[in-house]
């Protein structure tokens, strides 16, 4: 079941350097929301706060409120939260020593969930959802996850995240390291997945935000400048700075 996300006064620091200055944002359930903005504006830090990955960095701090559905993310252990709020990273990062099968099953296996037949089923379903099944079904346990192409690796990472059946899927520039064809495959995938999962996607690519996202948030220097329907942001933005960014006057 997809659920919404709500942040109130979310602030984040790296040491003494403040990266987010009080973000209030409501992400709708079962839709894709894009986070856009120039480099260093806090987009990645924002999504990394949502599954509490931010706090794994040395000297990092967070303040404010984050809710996933009804759940206060600080009321449960971070590892439990991360099983419900999955993440796909900028650079494809399959586990290099594991087979394709083990990569997808890793989240379940290493958390001690599921027996063998359940795992087989979940791995197949996740790979199908990630549109990778047909390409790898004959070499599931024979080939290393790292032997796939970059685009396949990223879909493998998506399958790996989906195997835990999360409620939310966070994607931190998931296509920025990929070629145009792989990118369009990932975008199609996001389009299909958003009916089942709430998706938050950080992107540098404004066309990509326009293609896949229902809502778009524009960040600048650690602040949320504008948040609205994607169409509205790209056609009639309310804020001058949003317009400047979208029309390429800076960033």
């Amino acid at each position, binding site marked *: 079941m997809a659920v919404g996300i709500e942040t109130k006064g979310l602030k984040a620091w790296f040491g003494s350097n403040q990266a987010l200055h009080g973000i209030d944002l409501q992400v709708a359930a079962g839709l894709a929301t894009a986070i856009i903005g120039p480099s260093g504006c806090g987009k990645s830090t924002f999504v990394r706060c949502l*599954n509490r*990955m931010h706090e*794994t960095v040395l000297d990092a701090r967070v303040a404010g409120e984050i809710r996933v559905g009804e759940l206060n993310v600080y009321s449960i252990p971070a*590892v*439990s*939260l*991360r*099983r419900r709020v*999955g*993440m796909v*990273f900028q*650079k494809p*990062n*399959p*586990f*290099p*020593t*594991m*087979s394709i099968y083990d990569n997808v099953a*890793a*989240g379940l296996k*290493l*958390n001690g969930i599921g027996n063998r037949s359940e795992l087989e089923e979940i791995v197949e379903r996740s790979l199908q959802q990630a549109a990778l099944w047909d390409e790898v079904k004959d070499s599931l346990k024979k*080939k*290393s*996850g*790292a*032997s796939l192409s970059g685009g396949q690796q990223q879909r493998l*990472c998506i399958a*790996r*995240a989906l195997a*835990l059946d999360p409620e939310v899927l966070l994607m931190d520039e998931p296509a920025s390291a990929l070629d145009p064809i792989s990118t369009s495959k990932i975008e199609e995938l996001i389009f299909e997945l958003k009916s089942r999962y709430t998706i938050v996607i950080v992107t540098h690519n404004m066309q990509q935000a326009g293609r896949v996202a229902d809502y778009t948030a524009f960040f600048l220097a650690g602040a949320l400048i504008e948040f609205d329907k994607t169409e509205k942001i790209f056609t009639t933005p309310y804020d001058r700075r949003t317009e400047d960014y979208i029309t390429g006057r800076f960033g």
Partner: protein
Amino acid sequence: MSSSTIALRRRAADYGATAISYIAALVVLAPLVAILSYLLMKGATSSNLAFFTEIPKPVGEAGGGMANAIGGSLLILGIASAIGIPVGVGTGVYLAEIARSGIGRGIRFLTDVLNGVPSIVIGLAAYSLVVIRQKHFSAISGGIALGAMMIPTIARATEEMLKLVPLSVREAALGLGIPQWRTTLSITLRSALPGIITGIMLAFSRVAGETAPLLFTAFGNAFWNWDPRQPTAALPLQIFVYAISPFEDWHRKAWAGALVLVAIIMVSVFAVRWVASRGTFKGTS
């Protein structure tokens, strides 16, 4: 200068550099090949079945072997590995994954110091800490001395190899809600395993030939002994005693012992590598 003379100079420099690296490799390999082939020649002609099955005969009698020393060496090395590998790998994991800068620097410095301590001093330490308390020499005190010598090499190798595992792999694991300890055990250590094994085998090979730390710990024994609390024969000790003896027969046995020692090291290295390489994928990244 014309373009052809530049090309000529570049090619000459290329040939020169290649030749230098070939020569360097040859300089390293020559003594190794020389020692190994001499050892093989001398050792193979001196070893027979009795060498592997019998214990030493009394002075002056012909025949006998070093079976007890081979067994004793395996026992002592087993004890050393049981101490050195877990402590070394554990220290390396602590340094790479957990330690904050201050304590980590301290431990790193101490392992470097331990690495530089002469082996005879390690033997003395084991003597005063274990042998004196036990009131007699033993395999276990020898194992402790050798185990302590394995720790720094294994700890530093583990630390360096873990640091080479990209942050992105750790993040992938944490992002899946896998607890830190599980991530370290099943993913980070697994990725770094080939390098860690190299470190372990380096440490193992180094201590397998150590004689000094065993002189007043394992002490040596002319008879069979499998009790780790009792004095035990070891190949390096036996080789040492036989090689400086006045008997031609003992000299030959010392050669055979040296060959067996090298064989034990090589077989263990290959066996461990083979076991560790099964079931892993040679990833491209």
